[in-house]
């Protein structure tokens, strides 16, 4: 209980909010890193995913490359980035972009590719140009899965951006690192709370975005998990009863 109390005190201390080491400044640093990484990743991954998803044959190689990309450890990338670019913002940015691109690319690619071919055939048959087809049929149908990829990337980048504190960039990771070096675990935990809050805000934002922009016709009206399980075990109609 006293730990929670200390945490409360920490957050209530105006000194912890101001200045170069304050929450506001560290939060802005964190958001700059996350925002730049996400913006760059979107510019790279979305067009690439759409382009390869639309071409019928190519693309599986790209997905395999993206999967290997998922295997590359962020911390090792940051370390390599330091050798190349020195410490600070840039190695962290590169690592965050490498972290964010694979989920966005893979899910965009999959989402575009999995649009029902009959839907596309009938859209073309009704006289849609390729641009109209993409804008009015493929992208709206792919949107929920694409948003999901961006959401996953965003959460991962927000949490992993704390590593930037190890190579001389600020951000919320500083509270964790600085707290550790002074054995001030209240400060460490405060850092965790701030990161978690940011992740939650990101999740909520994407949930809201999905609700606002995804057609209700695409939301899952399928049987619930429970019903599926019941059917699997052969208890037909039990869900209806």
């Amino acid at each position: 209980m006293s730990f929670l109390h200390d945490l409360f005190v920490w957050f209530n201390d105006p000194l912890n909010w101001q200045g170069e080491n304050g929450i506001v400044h560290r939060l802005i640093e964190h958001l700059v890193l996350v925002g730049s990484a996400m913006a760059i990743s979107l510019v790279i991954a979305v067009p690439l995913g759409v382009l390869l998803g639309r071409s019928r044959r190519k693309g599986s190689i790209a997905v395999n490359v993206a999967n290997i990309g998922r295997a590359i450890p962020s911390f090792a990338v940051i370390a390599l980035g330091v050798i190349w670019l020195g410490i600070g913002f840039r190695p962290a940015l590169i690592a965050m972009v490498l972290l964010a691109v694979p989920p966005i690319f893979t899910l965009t690619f999959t989402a575009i590719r999995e649009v029902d071919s009959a839907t596309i055939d009938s859209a073309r048959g009704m006289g849609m140009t390729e641009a109209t087809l993409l804008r009015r049929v493929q992208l709206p149908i792919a949107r929920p899965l694409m948003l999901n990829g961006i959401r996953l990337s965003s959460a991962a980048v927000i949490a992993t951006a704390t590593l930037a504190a190890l190579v001389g960039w600020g951000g919320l990771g500083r509270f964790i690192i600085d707290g550790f070096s002074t054995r001030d675990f209240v400060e460490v935990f405060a850092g965790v709370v701030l990161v978690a809050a940011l992740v939650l805000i990101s999740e909520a934002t994407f949930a809201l975005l999905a609700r606002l922009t995804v057609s209700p016709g695409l939301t899952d009206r399928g049987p619930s998990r429970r019903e599926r399980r019941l059917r699997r075990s052969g208890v037909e109609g039990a869900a209806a009863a």
Partner: protein
Amino acid sequence: MVLPGSILAQVDQPLIRWPWIGDHLALIGAALLQHLMLTFIAVGIGFALSMVMAVIAIRFHVSYAPINAVTGVMYAIPSLALFILLTPITGLTTLTAEIALISYTLQILFRSIVAGIDGVPAPVVESARGMGFTPSKRFLRIELPLALPVIISGLRIATVTTVGLVPIAGLLGRDQGGLGQLIFDGLNRFFNTPLLLGAVLTVALAVTLDLTLVGLQRVLTPWTRRGAAAA
């Protein structure tokens, strides 16, 4: 160990000093071995725990949501913080590193085991039941093998993630974190050679273990290979 925010980039030095590597082979070997041990123990224990939780979740459906939520929260804590937050309790020890690493594997492994078993086609389960398999035999001889491809793909992600997280445990002390020892040494001294070596070996280890597991899956589930060839 903590770097001030405004240090200049490293002074001119070669990308790699080969003599240093020659002089420190024993250290490098030990770091690599530690990295492997930390990874195997974490994934091994994580897998055992996840299997138990998956069996519980499949047997008692209500438990799925809470288990998923708890492992999800563990997975969501920034890795940097998880290592540090445990130190007041378990100290700057390997135990601290292992607990953190294990807790990262749980969500991935638990979900992939459940998804794999859930994805076994109902008719197969039905016919096994019809042939008189007991529930435990059915689980071991039918459901588990058929779920292997999904489970192994979960193992791949868990393993690769763990390999990537081990170096962060180097925060806990000079002799911790496997190849992370080299990376932190390099960062602290602005010395490229161990930094590069630690990072490259970590990436190489992740890719190697990933490919090993792909190979393992091909050996263990020959039926998926044949299916792919027919398609």
